[in-house]
Every structure is written in C-alpha cells, then in structure tokens.
C-alpha cells in the first residue's frame, strides 16, 4: 500500500487529535503534560488488561460471548480508573487553587477546567488509537494490502483507522462529560459515560457478522456524534451558567 496510504490511515485515525493538539493543547504547557500523562496512564491500563486476559487467550473464534465478556470487563476497569483519575485531578485542582491563592493569582477558570478534562480525554483517545490501530499499521507502509473476509469491501487498515477515529472522539469528549458529572454530582452524566463506552465496545462485536461492519461502523459513529453533541450542549449550558453567575455577582 505504500507510504502514502500508510500516512493516510494514520491521519484518518489521529489527524483530528493532532488538530486538537495543535490548536488547543499546545498553547498551554500544563495541558501538554496532562495529555502525555493521560496517554501513559491509559496505555498502562490497556496493558494491564491484556495481561489479565492473557491466560484466556486465544478466545474461541466462533462464539461471541467471550468477546462480550472481554469488552465488559475492560470497560468496567477503565471506568473505575476514570473515577480514580478524576479523584487525582480533584486533588491537583485543590493544590493549584491554593497555590494561586497564595501568590494572589486567579484560580482555575471554568474554561481551564474544561480544557484539562479535554486534554485528559484526548490522552485516553490517543492511547486507544495507538494501541488498537497504530500498532498494526506498520505493514500498511509496504506494497501489499489486506482485506478481511468479514468486511471485504474496504481494506483492513482503513476499517481499523475509521473505528479508531470514532473511539478517539468518544473518549475525548466523554472525559469532559465525566469530569463535569463528578464535579457537579450530576447522576445522568455520571451514568451516561460508562453506558456510552460500553455501548461503543459492544457495537464493535457487530463486526463479527459477515459484512457486519456495514451496520456496526455507522452505529458506532452515531454513538460518537451523540457524545459530541451531548458534550457540546453540556459545555454551552455551563458556560452560560458561569457567565450569568459572574454578571450576577457584580
């Protein structure tokens, strides 16, 4: 498939993350650090999960429920880890706020907190894309291509990149939803993030069916756009609230 196609697949999977990094994250060093540490944390979580599941591999190829179990346990583990991540962030936020008080500087704005959540989510998304798509992409730079029996219209690498893009979107924006949900104690948001993550994971099982990717991938993008829309709505509401609050407090 050559270098051109290899770069194309990498850009499909991680291009938007790159855009986000360049336009938002790279302006603030703290966000860069957040992305890096988040990526590392989530990569380690995926490695731990693979270590835990290693004795049970390879799974039986012609039944789907072991894979569903795999997805379920992984999602539960990662959601638990997300809560811990938020807890650590909360401590960090308190430290930063008290430091700001000491040197008579303003505390973290809402936008700052949202950006940190976004950076955390971006780290999660990049970790997913690296682990599930980029690690397989080396053969794509060679001359040959590969088609899978069960999704035979599109090359395997392209499908992998498209799915990775959907998950990058889901992870990036659900971290924002989750942080706001934990901060505000909003049960809807708190429950929605694991549900979306689990739904997205289970949707990939649809790809097991012959030509199932024709249904599975659009549904996955539906979930991703739902996440994006909900996050947008939530952020807009919060911004309006904070603006009203700040004008009311004057």
């Amino acid at each position, binding site marked *: *498939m*050559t270098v*051109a*196609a290899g*770069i*194309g*697949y990498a*850009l*499909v999977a991680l*291009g*938007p993350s*790159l*855009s986000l990094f*360049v*336009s*938002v994250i790279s302006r603030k060093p703290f966000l860069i650090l957040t992305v890096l540490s988040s990526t590392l944390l989530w990569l380690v979580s995926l490695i731990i999960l693979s270590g835990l599941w290693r004795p049970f591999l*390879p799974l039986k*190829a*012609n*039944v*789907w429920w072991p894979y*569903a179990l795999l997805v379920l346990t992984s999602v539960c583990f990662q959601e638990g880890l997300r809560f811990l991540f938020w807890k650590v962030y909360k401590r960090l936020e308190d430290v930063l706020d008290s430091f700001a008080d000491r040197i008579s500087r303003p505390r973290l704005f809402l*936008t700052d907190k949202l950006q940190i959540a976004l950076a955390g989510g971006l780290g999660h998304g990049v970790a997913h894309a690296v682990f599930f798509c980029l690690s*397989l992409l080396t*053969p794509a730079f*060679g*001359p*040959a*291509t*590969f*088609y899978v*029996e069960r999704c*035979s*219209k599109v090359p395997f690498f*392209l499908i992998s990149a498209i799915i990775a893009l959907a998950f990058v979107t889901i992870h990036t924006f659900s971290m924002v939803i989750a942080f706001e949900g934990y901060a505000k104690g909003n049960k*809807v948001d708190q*429950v*929605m993030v694991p*549900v*979306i993550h*689990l*739904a997205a994971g*289970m949707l990939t*099982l*649809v790809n*097991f*069916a*012959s030509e*199932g990717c024709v*249904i599975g991938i659009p*549904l996955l993008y*539906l*979930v991703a756009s*739902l996440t994006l829309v909900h996050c*947008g709505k939530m*952020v807009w509401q919060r*911004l*309006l609230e904070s*603006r009203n609050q700040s*004008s009311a407090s004057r």
Partner: protein
Amino acid sequence: MAMGLIRLLSIAFTLVLLSILPLHLSLADEITSIESVPDLQKLMYVAVDGFPCVRLLNLSGEIGCSNPGINKVVAPIIKLKDVKDLVQPHTILVTADEMEDFFTRVSTDLSFASKIGGVLVESGSNFQQKLKGFSPDKRFPQAQFSPYENVEYKWNSAASSIMWRNYNFPVYLLSESGISAVHEILSKKKMKHGTYTSDVAEFNMVMETTKAGTHNSEACLQEGTCLPLGGYSVWSSLPPISVSSSNNRKPVVLTVASMDTASFFRDKSFGADSPISGLVALLGAVDALSRVDGISNLKKQLVFLVLTGETWGYLGSRRFLHELDLHSDAVAGLSNTSIETVLEIGSVGKGLSGGINTFFAHKTRVSSVTNMTLDALKIAQDSLASKNIKILSADTANPGIPPSSLMAFMRKNPQTSAVVLEDFDTNFVNKFYHSHLDDLCKKSHSLSFSSFRSKPHFALLIPFWCCIAANINSSSVVAAASVVARTLYILASDNKDTSNSALGSIHVNASFVEELLTCLLACEPGLSCNLVKDYISPTNTCPGNYAGVILGEPSSKPYLGYVGDVSRFLWNFLADKTSVQKGNTTSVCSKGVCSKTDEVCIKAESNKEGTCVVSTTRYVPAYSTRLKYNDGAWTILPQNSSDSMGMVDPVWTESNWDTLRVHVYTVQHSAYDNAVLVAGITVTTLAYIGILAAKSIITKALKQD
C-alpha cells in the same frame, strides 16, 4: 432534555444488544486468528511453495531461468488463456499441458517474451492426465557424445528442447499447496474488491551470475559465482577385492547404472523410469546376489558402479575412466585391462505390457563378449519360473546404442564390448523423459496430501493402488532385477551349464524393490523411509535426483557433509551387501575409521557408532575432465586432443544464489492510495476548522456581557 437523551441512549443500547444476540448464527465460518503483527504480515504476503528453474552456465553461455536483474520481480498474475495485448510485464499462470507450446512461443516471439515478468507453472493431476507426453530434453540427448554419426536420429519422440534454452525471467513450478494458495488469492479478487486492486506475484530468484555479470562457465568459476555440476559416484565389488594381492586379479564383470536425472525444475526431478528404475534394478540384483553362497568362488569378479552427473556430459563415466587411466586411489583394485564385460541397466520401468515384461539388449558392437552377454541374458530369462520376461535384441536398424553411459565408454575406447538393457527398442517409450512428470505417483484429488517438505511424517508406504498412472511399473523393475541378477551369476561363473538349482536360488525380493522405489521416487516416505534411515541420516526427505554441484575438493575419501544423500545411501548399502564377515566378532567404529585396512565403517550416521565390515566400496568423484580444483577454486583446463569428449564438453556449472522465494499478495492501485492520503488530510483539516469554529463561539459566548 437530559431524560430524553437518556431514553434515546437506552433505546440505542437495547437495539445493539438485540442485534448482537442473533450473531451466534453467523459466526459459522472460521477466523484465521492473527496474534501479532508478524502473523498479519504472513497473511498479507502469502509464501508460495514450489520448485524453481535455476540458471545453468556452460562455456558458451547460459540456459535456464533467473530474475533479469538484481531486483525482485513484481508482476500482476494473469492466466495464459486470458492473455491479450499486454502492456506491462505480467506473471503468466501456465498449466502443465500448455507448458511446451508456451516456452516454444517465448523463444520464437520476442515481443511476447518481453511482456513476461515471471511464470508460474501449475502441474496439478487434472492437467497431467491430459498430457500424452512431455519432455523438455532434446530429440537425441547428449548427441555430441555419440560414438556414431547419425546425430539426427530421434530417440526422444516427445522432445521439445525447452530446458536447454535461456530465459530472461523467473519460472516457478507450484506445489500442491502453492497451487491452492494462488487460486485462493485469485478467487478472492473475483468475489469482492476487483476494481481497485490487483494480485501480484513477487519473485525473489536473483542469481549471483546475473549480479556479477558473469555469463559463461569460465567467467563465473573465476569470480566464484558458480559451482561445477557433479557429485560422487559409488562402486563396490562382490566379493571384496583384496588390494594387497595385486596379482591373481580376476577378470571383472562391470554392471553400471546411473543415479542422476534432470528436468526443467531442479528440485522436482525424480527420473522414475530414466534412470532410477535401472538403479533400483541394480540394487535389487545386488541384494539377491548377496544372499547366494559361493560368490567368492566364481571365476570372475562382479563390480557394481553407480554413476552420477551422466545427464550433464557423462561426468561420472568420463571421470571414472580417467581415474582408471591414472590408477588412482578411487579405483584401487580395478584396471582398464581387468574389465572384461560391461552391462549397463538403463530404463527398465516400462517393460510391462500385456502381462509380459519385455526388455531390449542394445550392444555396442558385435563381438564374442557381447554374444556371451546376450546368451547369458537368454539363459537367465529361460530360467525364471514365471516365464513372463522376454529379452530381445535391439533392432539392427538402430544407428547404435541409445543415449547411455556406454556412449562415453565407447568414445573412450571404441573396442568396448558392452550391452545396455532398456525397456525400449527404436525410441524411448518413456514419454516423460527428463521431465518433472517422470515420477511414481500422480495422486488423485481424494488422496492429496499437504506439502511434505517440512512436516514430520511417519513412514507410510504408498501402496501402488493409490497411484493413478504412475510412469513406471514395479513388476517391470523386479523382472529386470531378476534377469540381471541371474545373468551376472552366469557371466561370473563363466559356465553355460550352470545347474538350475544354483540359478534357481537367486531371487529378487519384490517387496524390497517396491519399498526402495517409494524411498527414491516419492516424497512420502521418501528418504525418511526405514530402509534408507537404517544406513544414513538424510538431510532431505524429498529425493531430488538432480546431480547438483560438487562441493569442496573432489577426493575418493570426501568430507561426507558434501556428499549427497543418495550417494551416501548407496555407499553404505552396497558396502553392507557386498561385505563378508571375518569371524563372528563385529567391531564398532566411531568417527568412521576402522582399524584394518580392508575394512570400512558403515551405518555410522544413523547410529553414531557404525560397524566395521570388510568391503571394497569407494566413492569416485564425478566432474568434468576439463576442470581442475586448486586452492579452493576451479579452473578450466585447455582443450586436449587426447580427451575427445572433453573437446565437446560444455562444462556445465550452476549459478549460486541467495534465496529462491515467491510471494503472492494483493496490491492497491495508486489512485486508491492517494485517495486515502487525501481523505486523511481532509479529515484533519475539517477537524481543525471545526475546532477553531468551536473556540471562536466559546470565546464570543464568554465575552458577551
């Protein structure tokens, strides 16, 4: 609002679960599990198993096949029948029955030849059944060595001469697994994604002589990019000759057979009829005679000689005769003058017809010795109880002896009185002479085994009823062995009134002959059969009866790692059968050395510790009389008028190579690759624009006061 969204999500989730539940029905077909990136690469680049055609050189040029340059050849695959006006070089998929016409067309039509990137030959059993005959050799093989003038005589009627031409592209014969791999890739394309992909074959068959630009034997031997063809012939005498007593030498009856053949594809040459049937008949006769009492009391000495390199300019016989002139160590115990009669066993696998095995005795010239041999053959024929063997003299209208080692013997000494026993009279009955189809078994579809080369397998004798249309018949070989054994006894006892009881006790073991045929002519059990493993540890399971190159310094006591499997097996087998036991003690030998001078160490490979037996069995190197080995390099000697065969010897060498591999894979058209790159860039740019838009909206919303 939030509740509405939750409801929407829960509905979506339920739908998902419902769509997953019926999945168990559709997971019926198997998944090839990919467990790592190397696994993925192996699935992408499918390695195709098969047999290459390699580059051979002679004094004036090259023959055979090779990659045209130093790079891999990558060309899209197309079947020969679909070829129409090709623009760029393609890989042509040719079936066995189309092979002859295809290669003939390549040599005559240069514009067609320029459009060939590579060739894959498919030789499945369904195509083989269509073929009545196929021989890539010449009409009169090795005619330049003929002792008579009629070199236009057509001995080989199915001849096409395609293996003696020079091809500037790689040619690869697909094995059974290779054929299925190629068909699988081609069928996938038809089913699914035909328009923007093409299936290509990648040939990695670069020859060192092409890389170094050495295009004849002299240049390549000088540069060290090739090696001369040859090997190790084996001779053994029954009973052993005591070298010390040089007087009282009995006259020698020499029985000759050859062990090498050739075909278009170097590693797929079994040579069932020509010449392995003759070799197996000789071994069957040796086995029968070894069980006869009183062999040492006969008037003449029996010597058995198995030559190699005969296909490539009678290297074995020429070197053997040369060594006899030099009285070298390799032939200690023999001399030119002591050889009284020569009997060669040629192709004897196709003598069976209508229940009778018929063989023809071709004699070099009319003399008392040849008449004696013919009489002995007749007596042996009559003595066999089954009465289904007939020995006939060859037609006097034949121009002379057929292509055989005796041609070299005659050229060296026109007074040679010798007889060659063949299953044909005026021309070859073997319609697959020197082709990859001269083998034991054409398997039917229901009995197809997977590729044997690297998988371990238990010793499984293929009974003959499994084979459809084998090119030889084992009963013909057994009949020839019986006749030869008794003929040799008669010749050695020099007594025409041999009693029937003595002759009648000479029996060839038919099951031994059948087992040996499956060892030397089939891949299963091949050289891993019990019979061969008893004597040696073979390096390959599939016997390849191509002579190959001669490695290292030629000597009568060569380093055994450089001697081929079949030569080592023959040496051990003949030493065992022709040995006499001295007393009741058998001493063991490690490191292949026996204490007494007339003893040799046999079976040392498989058991690590061999047995010392008294036997006269020696290796004789087989290589061109025009070559000399000096200080690790080969040089070509100038022409010598005393060596008339050396004057016409092409001096064959084989190019060295790094690897011989073929892969097939699917390639996307470059338009598709570029479209993917553009898509990636577009997605990135659109995301960037979207993020900038979101940023400006948020900033505006925050600024609104």
